[in-house]
């Protein structure tokens, strides 16, 4: 989006040079006029706020796994109020509770502007300027495009508002101090949009974007260091401290400890149904992210995710429960 206004003056320059060589004709006048209009349109659209599309937003919602952390399926079951928060997410630092992201004006995010929503997702900063705790995976969402985010926002705004006050975290200091998150961010967070790798295929790039930005796979499937930062040398190699204290398996292409033996179609089928190649089902948060999100994705997205995951370099890492348990 930012590339367009920069590109236009160059194009105009090219045409002006051509003008010097060629005598003025009707055609060249038309071309100059056309480019001038395009340049104007480009400059205008760069400054105009983006418009969210609810249908595209539903797809972004599905890509994120249905924002399942924000629905308390684990305690309130299938009929839990959707996106009203209150779900306990246990971590080695204590228990955090997910927040109400319904459009409710008092207890939800109904009053947030689109720009504030984008800042929350990409920077981890709340409308009041405070940091969000990194249990909210903005480390991945920072890669999401502005357009995907306003689309997501548009879709979230169509869902029923629910009145439910957010629950404070049950965490020991210093992990309960919001200002401490600045230090955490300095150590572990780099804001920035996802960038394509031109040497790779389109489908791989699409998968890279989905896996590492909206679908935020690495947040649970990557081990964390003692500060709670993601150990990027072990990207997707599994974690003993997954969501809700569960084990998150190694999803690199290692054939012994990862999913290297899975066929591309096994991966797609798993994301559609929750069934592994051996016929066993999946449990916990993953089963909910599939049911309320990934399973509804179009084949193109599922194939992109599977193609990318198949390409993740193998890391030999067996995820085991802590011996103290």
């Amino acid at each position, binding site marked *: 989006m930012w590339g367009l206004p920069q590109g236009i003056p160059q194009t105009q320059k090219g045409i002006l040079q051509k003008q010097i060589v060629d005598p003025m004709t009707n055609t060249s006048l038309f071309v100059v006029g056309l480019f001038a209009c395009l340049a104007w349109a480009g400059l205008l659209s760069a400054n105009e706020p983006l418009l969210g599309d609810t249908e595209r937003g539903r797809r972004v919602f599905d890509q994120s796994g249905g924002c399942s952390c924000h629905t308390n399926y684990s305690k309130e079951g299938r009929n839990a109020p959707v996106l009203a928060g209150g779900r306990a997410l246990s971590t080695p630092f204590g228990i955090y509770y997910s927040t109400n992201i319904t459009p409710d004006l008092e207890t939800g995010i109904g009053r947030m502007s689109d720009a504030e929503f984008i800042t929350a997702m990409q920077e981890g900063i709340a409308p009041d300027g405070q940091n969000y705790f990194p249990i909210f995976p903005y480390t991945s969402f920072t890669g999401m495009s502005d357009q995907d985010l306003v689309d997501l926002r548009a879709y979230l705004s169509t869902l029923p508002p629910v009145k439910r006050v957010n629950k404070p975290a049950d965490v020991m200091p210093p992990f309960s101090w919001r200002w401490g998150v600045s230090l955490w961010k300095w150590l572990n967070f780099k804001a920035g949009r996802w960038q394509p790798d031109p040497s790779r295929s389109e489908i791989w790039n699409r998968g890279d974007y989905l896996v590492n930005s909206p679908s935020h796979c690495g947040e649970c499937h990557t081990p964390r260091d003692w500060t709670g930062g993601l150990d990027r040398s072990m990207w997707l190699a599994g974690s*003993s401290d997954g969501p809700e*204290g*569960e*084990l998150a398996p190694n999803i690199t292409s290692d054939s012994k400890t990862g999913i290297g033996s899975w066929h591309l*179609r*096994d991966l*797609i*089928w798993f994301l559609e*149904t*929750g*069934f592994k*190649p*051996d*016929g*066993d*089902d*999946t*449990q*916990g948060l993953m*089963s909910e992210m599939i049911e309320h999100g990934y399973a509804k994705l179009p084949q193109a997205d599922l194939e992109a995710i599977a193609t990318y995951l198949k390409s993740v370099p193998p890391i030999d890492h067996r*995820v*085991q*429960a802590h011996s103290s*348990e």
Partner: protein
Amino acid sequence: MHPTIRTERVQTPSKRLQARLGMLVLTLLLALPSTGLAQDAEGTLKYRQDLMSAIGSDMAAISDILKFQLPLQANIETHASNIASNAGLMNSAFKAPISDGPTDAKPEIWQDWAHFEKDIAKMKAAAEKLSQTVAQGGDGAAIGAGLKTLGRTCGGCHKEFRKPKKESYKNK
């Protein structure tokens, strides 16, 4: 157990031997059934897991037909009916309340046996329905819906009655 009787009994060596042999026999008699029980438990766990694997294998086979779009859709009828038959064996397989050792069965199974039985009945009904859907020439959407219902019965029961991964004996 009267003291005078005891002094009489241990007076002769042959009687002492008899008493010791009696103790040995008694010990052996007590020990034998418990060894038998341990072996039973091991065998029961193995049998349960083989039964669950059989159900898993049929589930995997159905999945293979659908995910690779194999021209074997008619076979799903048999795979689903196998699942229904195996579901019928689960009550007897899980009757013995064993949740210790190499097993992921939660003790809740026997604390709420009626619920467990109901879950099994649900799986059996869903598997039979899927088998019938295929037999009656149901289309892809109908088969998909049937499989989804069946899949939910696996997940529902596992959520209640199977230990989560971090507690699984396989990850210790």
